[in-house]
């Protein structure tokens, strides 16, 4: 090899990269910058609106947590090279199935939840199976699932109960052992103590007098954080994570080295269905009802959060932490505009603009990683 450089010596043709350039190719960068920007903006313009009071923080934390839960699923699936447009319909469908099983059929709540999870995982697996078997774009396959699931979510309660909202879930969940895992709150004692020593406000009147205004961390937030940690560890620290990157980066190359690409993709579709069902279960426990229109447009919000978080739409590149930050930006802006008294329809304008910006930035970053090729 005539031009081989001696071992250990640097190659003079390799330019030293600047720190800035190093930082720029981290997928989380957009999410980190965006989060700092959004928080600075609202701290300046909405600091006295109650947005940063304990209740305010709890408010946007919950909204962000909702986005986070579905973003983790969408993120891993997108890195594996596929989309799931049926996430929103799955949220509606899963919530409705829990309601039908527990309220209409009178099953115990834990059984309703377990059976719904099994059903959702089955549908996720079917989506994945159709995609890998037919080789069709997942965009089309899951678009079909979007309509089919939404259709059943409206049809079933109308046929059975002659209405599109089924209530009474809170009563049905009374005394159940599994339901608090989705609808409960933790650290209630700690928040009561915070209220007692005056660190957070307490209600001064009504039947909740003496109780703190924030009385615990909802399980929704616990789920969101747990899923983010789980997704991040699986993606970056396990061999399965390497398979996810490989499957999305180049499925054929991955197959040649023995990566079970089909299995990875189907599992990711199942994971997306799983997080949608977690979302749905938390939601029906919180609201005490299931509605046929729940989860509308959630699939796109999840995808936007993931893209803001630095993932490439073409797969093979992205970060769960980035997606979580994307979801945080999402929640903070949506609720922040409300606190700041800005017309809420402008939120959509913001979404569109930031999505466009993120996609352009990601394309640029991708060219940097692959050396402007």
């Amino acid at each position, binding site marked *: *090899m*005539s*031009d*081989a*450089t001696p*071992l*250990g*010596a*640097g*190659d003079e043709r*390799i330019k030293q*990269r600047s720190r800035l350039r190093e930082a720029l190719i981290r997928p989380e960068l957009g999410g980190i910058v965006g989060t700092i920007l959004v928080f600075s903006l609202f701290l300046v313009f909405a600091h006295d609106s109650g947005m940063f009071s304990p209740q305010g923080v709890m408010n946007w934390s919950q909204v962000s947590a909702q986005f986070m839960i579905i973003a983790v699923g969408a993120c891993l699936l997108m890195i594996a090279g596929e989309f799931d447009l049926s996430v929103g319909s799955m949220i509606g469908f899963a919530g409705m199935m829990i309601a039908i099983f527990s309220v209409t059929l009178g099953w115990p709540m834990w059984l309703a939840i377990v059976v719904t999870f099994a059903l959702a995982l089955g549908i996720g697996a079917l989506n994945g199976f159709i995609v890998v078997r037919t080789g069709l774009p997942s965009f089309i396959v899951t678009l079909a699932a979007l309509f089919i699931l939404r259709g059943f979510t409206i049809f079933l309660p109308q046929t059975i109960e002659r209405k599109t909202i089924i209530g009474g879930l809170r009563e049905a969940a009374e005394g159940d052992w599994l339901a608090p895992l989705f609808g409960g709150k933790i650290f209630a004692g700690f928040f009561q103590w915070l209220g007692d020593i005056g660190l957070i406000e307490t209600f001064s009147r009504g039947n909740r007098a003496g109780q703190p205004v924030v009385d615990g961390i909802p399980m929704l937030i616990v789920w969101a954080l747990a899923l983010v940690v789980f997704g991040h560890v699986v993606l*970056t*620290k*396990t*061999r399965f*994570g*390497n*398979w996810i*990157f*490989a499957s999305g*980066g*180049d499925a*054929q*190359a*991955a*197959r*040649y*080295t*023995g*990566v079970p690409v089909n299995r990875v993709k189907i599992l990711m579709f199942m994971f997306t269905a799983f997080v949608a069902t977690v979302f749905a279960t938390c939601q029906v426990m919180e609201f005490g009802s299931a509605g046929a229109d729940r989860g509308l447009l959630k699939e796109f919000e999840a995808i936007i959060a993931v893209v803001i978080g630095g993932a*490439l739409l073409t797969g*093979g*590149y992205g970060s769960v932490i980035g997606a979580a930050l994307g979801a945080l930006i999402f929640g903070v802006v949506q609720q922040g505009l409300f606190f700041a008294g800005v017309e809420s329809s402008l939120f959509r304008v913001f979404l569109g603009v930031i999505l466009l910006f993120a996609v352009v930035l990601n394309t640029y970053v*991708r060219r940097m*990683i*692959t*050396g402007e*090729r």
Partner: protein
Amino acid sequence: MADTKPIVEMKNIEKHFGSVIALAGVSLDIHPGECHCLLGDNGAGKSTFIKALSGVHAPTAGEIFYEGRPMRFANPRDAIDAGIATVYQDLAMIPLMSVARNFFMGNEPTRKVGPFRFFDHEHANRVTMEEMAKMGISLRSPDQAVGTLSGGERQTVAIARAVYFGAKVLILDEPTSALGVRQTSNVLATIDKVRKQGVAVVFITHNVRHALAVGDRFTVLNRGKTLGTARRGEITSEELQDMMAGGQELAELEGSLGGTV
């Protein structure tokens, strides 16, 4: 080569795709430590032939002996596990992933922490840097994306990867066809290094000069048939060129081109 036993013997391999006969009885043997060049024009059946060996296609007829035993590979994984690795021209690497992640793709090292198994990045990074240094590629860091490497360097990473994971037979499918002069010489040098480690190399190409630069033996395929195997020194580049193109027509062409092909 006569003193070593062949690691692979393929006898009268036939492959039919419907009514198309892609291979009409091709035989070949490969010895450890040799570079066996498989030459042929486009459509001669080179790819089909090596896909029979790498487990992608099951041959319609014929026998494959591997280390003296008859073998039938159901899928590429079987062949890889047995020690037959294939490096494809353009499907070897994933550009967006780091060199270390690519190097260990499908063979990730794991470290046990409690009941969980984690990707051992430390081990992967160290081995990748070592193996790349052996092949004469200096990486900025193991986190460097494969997309920043040149085409020749990518081929070299793929070859180093296959050898590191115990390939006894290495099939290279047109590794030099898309490369520039300098990159080609790098890949040919890599082939030479690998051969000296005792790996049997099957080098598929339609470039006679590349074949003659590293080949020990040469087998020419034409229209699904073999025109025989020649040893190094027994055959000239003109004769090889002639056999690949099927003689007659090229002779006419060469006349008009003044012997430049």
